[in-house]
């Protein structure tokens, strides 16, 4: 399903349909995350990927044009780069531990400690929240700073800041 949607996105020329398919792609990934028991990630994917990104893309589309400009550039080099990167990624998956392998590094490093002791140390049932907000609070602070920086960048680019409005008028 994901692959079919992705191929449809590549084939489309109408950006509106591409954005809609992007939302569908996000929703499909969200169901995929639910299957992997990652409900928190699925929740975020459904809300951000399928919801907000689609709306923001649509509002960006309203400010630009509906159709993709046909380019007459040579596509051989980009296709080559994508193929080489994709082949490298597929090759490197052969080094990954099997899905669900209990001896995989991700299950033997810090995860057992989180599962066994976060109840005593943090005292809240959702381990994802314990990890995100307490054990990895620095990372989350960084993420929030990134979100805030994105706002500053968008406001600067769209020129809605009070300073730049005065410059124009």
């Amino acid at each position, binding site marked *: 399903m994901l692959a079919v949607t992705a191929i449809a996105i590549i084939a489309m020329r109408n950006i509106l349909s591409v954005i809609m398919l992007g939302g569908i792609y996000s929703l499909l990934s969200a169901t995929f995350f639910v299957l992997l028991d990652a*409900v*928190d990630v*699925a*929740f*975020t994917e459904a*809300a*951000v990927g399928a*919801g*907000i990104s689609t*709306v*923001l893309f649509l*509002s*960006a589309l*309203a*400010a630009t044009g509906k159709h993709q400009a046909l380019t007459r550039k040579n596509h051989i080099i980009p296709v080559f780069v994508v193929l080489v990167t994709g082949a490298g990624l597929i090759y490197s998956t052969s080094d990954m531990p099997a899905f669900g392998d209990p001896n995989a590094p991700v299950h033997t490093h810090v995860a057992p400690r989180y599962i066994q002791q976060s109840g*005593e*140390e*943090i*005292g*809240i*049932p*959702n381990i*994802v*929240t*314990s990890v*995100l*907000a*307490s054990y990895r*609070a*620095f990372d*989350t*602070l960084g*993420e*929030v*700073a990134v*979100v*805030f920086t*994105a*706002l500053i960048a*968008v*406001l600067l680019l*769209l020129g*809605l800041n009070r300073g730049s409005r005065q410059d124009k008028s």
Partner: protein
Amino acid sequence: MSVRKNPILLESSHLLIPAILLFALYVQFHGDYGPGGGFQAGVIFASGIILYTLLHGTKRAEKVISLNTAKVFAALGLLLYAGVGVFGIILGGNYLDYNVLAHDPVHGQHWGILIIEFGVGITVAGVIISIFYAFAKFKK
């Protein structure tokens, strides 16, 4: 726009928007117990405001929450988060160490997580609302 005069859309949005905002608060403060947390809650809250903006236009939406208010909230959330860290230092712990925030470590962790998740929530909501306003006003 004709969308804004469609009675079905208007009425169903009037039913939906309070539920969306309430659900955002539920996701925000129930994040310790179930899936959810500040990021998701902020996005859901912002989507409620965005739905209102789509139907009523930026002028009426800005009476609910203006671009400047949203920007201030975005900054406040980040400050709140970083401030909890600094407060921990003042109380004698490390930066972002919640153990010192209350009389015993587990309670401190509860407080810390609740407050920083709230900071995350208002930053994300503020940022998304502001970005949406920025795009919505861009054409004018």
